[in-house]
């Protein structure tokens, strides 16, 4: 294969997840998967297709519908030297397991004075736009980023799925790996061999000079769309894909804002108390004198996710809304 052929290898976001897991399981026998329907059924959205056939029932475990015990299983196995990947189907179900995640997994190392480590990855699917209603559509990353001891990852493309999943599973801390349901079928460049995208490193997806647009997950593609519209209006947008939300790459954000003097943060999660608030706070602490305008924030309105497409389409932030906020920041409108 020539270098050009290799560089155009494309995979869907969902297939990149499955392929990566298969490769990691082949190289590390301590890695196992547990969750509802992950075995013969291949997991929700097919994320674990074929893995049980390949690795057997002890390494791809179909569990009862018991989210709390699933995360507990992972926590106990991790403390005992294994490297579990536990699946919680929908991010909304993370809430059912919150005690095991927040009171147990996240804190054990600290509470035990460093005498253990917890190499567990919790995988799940977030995001609205499928008329899945208020209990199957949430983006709850801010809740998790608030918890010391947890790492939180939200990839936007197949390449980063591979690099971040590899880094997450090899990491000795509990990591919540959040896919976006509407990205699962999206194809993009993805290398074949395993590699790591270091946790805590953002990427500049589109360089620009006039305004920094900080985003992650599915809002990356919406932000890039907004950026190309704005380019035609003479606004040169730099798009930063955070990739990891905890730890947060404030260095990349601050350095960018020091150049562009404007910043907007865009996420699908509810705006109030969302990651945008945290990022805006960091910027005013570290780059106050560089700012020409307040930091803009794009996020969902303050309501549960509505079922009907008529309201859900109003609810989920999009390129047009992001572009409006960027214009407002750059032109000091409204």
């Amino acid at each position: 294969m020539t270098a050009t052929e290799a560089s155009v290898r494309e995979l869907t976001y969902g297939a990149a997840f499955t392929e990566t897991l298969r490769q990691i399981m082949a190289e590390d026998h301590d890695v196992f998967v547990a969750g509802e329907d992950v075995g013969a059924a291949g997991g929700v959205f097919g994320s674990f297709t074929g893995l049980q056939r390949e690795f057997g029932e002890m390494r791809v475990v179909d569990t009862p519908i018991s989210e709390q015990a699933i995360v507990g299983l992972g926590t106990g196995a991790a403390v005992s030297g294994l490297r579990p990947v536990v699946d919680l189907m929908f991010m909304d179900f993370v809430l059912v397991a919150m005690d095991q995640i927040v009171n147990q997994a996240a804190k054990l190392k600290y509470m035990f004075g460093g005498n253990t480590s917890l190499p567990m990855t919790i995988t799940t699917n977030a995001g609205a736009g499928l008329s899945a209603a208020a209990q199957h559509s949430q983006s709850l990353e801010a809740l998790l980023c608030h918890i010391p001891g947890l790492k939180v990852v939200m990839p936007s493309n197949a390449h980063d799925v591979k690099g971040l999943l590899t880094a997450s599973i090899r990491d000795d801390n509990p990591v919540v790996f959040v896919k976006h349901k509407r990205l699962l079928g999206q194809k993009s460049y993805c290398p074949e061999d395993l590699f790591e995208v270091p946790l805590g490193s953002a990427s500049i997806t589109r360089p620009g000079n006039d305004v920094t647009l900080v985003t992650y997950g599915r809002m990356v593609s919406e932000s890039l769309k907004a950026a190309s519209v704005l380019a035609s209006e003479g606004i040169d947008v730099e798009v930063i894909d955070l990739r990891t939300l905890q730890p947060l790459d404030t260095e990349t954000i601050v350095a960018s804002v020091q150049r562009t003097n404007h910043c907007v943060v865009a996420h699908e999660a509810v705006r109030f108390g969302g990651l945008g608030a945290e990022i805006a706070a960091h910027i005013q602490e570290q780059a106050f004198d560089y700012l020409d305008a307040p930091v803009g924030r794009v996020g969902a309105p303050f309501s549960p996710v509505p079922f009907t497409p008529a309201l859900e389409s109003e609810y989920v932030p999009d390129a047009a809304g992001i572009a409006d906020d960027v214009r407002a920041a750059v032109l000091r409108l409204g």
Partner: protein
Amino acid sequence: MEITAEVLVDLHHRMVRIRRFEEAAGALFENSEMPGFIHLYVGEEAVAAGVCATLRNDDQVGSTHRGHGHLVAKGGDLSRMMAELMGKATGYNHGKGGSMHICDLDLNMLGANGIVGGGIPIAVGAAFANKYRKSDTVAVVFFGDGATNIGAFHEAINMASALQLPAVFVCENNEYGEFTPRRDTMGVDDVVDRAAGYGIPGVVVDGMDVVAVFEAAAQAVARARGGQGPSFIEAKTYRFYNHHGVQTLGVKYRSDEEVARWRERDPIVLLEERLLALDVMTAEDIEAVHRQVQADVDAAVAFGKESPYPEPSALLEDVYTVGGVR
């Protein structure tokens, strides 16, 4: 409660309403005329019908992600249901809930639920309110076999037992949680074995026999109404269609032979054979029920299709109660 001819006719009517509603909803869903997720109740009609026929309007019903049948059996309005499933403003939840959250608080149907096991503690809370008010109202909660593996079930049933609440726990054991066989997820042969661990009486009934369900429910409800505490019913049943939607896509998890065996015991056909044998209804009577119900369902579909979507301004309404509900 006695099994009179009137009761049999009523049970039949409830079951046919569920079946015809679900078949129509499934067709709309397969035809991409209905958004979101839809979990059909076809095959399990005898459970909701048999239980709800023993209830009064004020008795509460807790439900699941597979909740349409519970609402239809409690007397739900087919038009408002269909409109909700289509996301229309005229639906029960004004389009905000859809299939997984459909409810009718006037009928004391406390809502379908997107979280497996999520409805069980809520129903126990309703039972508590009944006892608190010294009323003889009963709370019934439906849940799947899979739901009995989740903590919320165990905490709630123990609470109901400890506080001796007027609750009836109805397990719809269709032998699968999504695509995983029940036997791979629990160590007991019958789900009802779990009731004993909480000091609650339990029975197993043939969930395809609506009369058996009705009799068991009548006893359990009478116990609760009489202040004798909670009971547990395990109804052995089967869903004729896929976990979600109608057709099984992707991995096949049940054999054709197994599905056919259960379909041979279609709960509606079984009851109709009985109605004919007992001379309670003629073939023409039965046919007339189907025709009438189908007309109602067709009208519900038309109502749903013609109804408007909610206005964008509805998005931020009802996040909070403003000014109180009293």
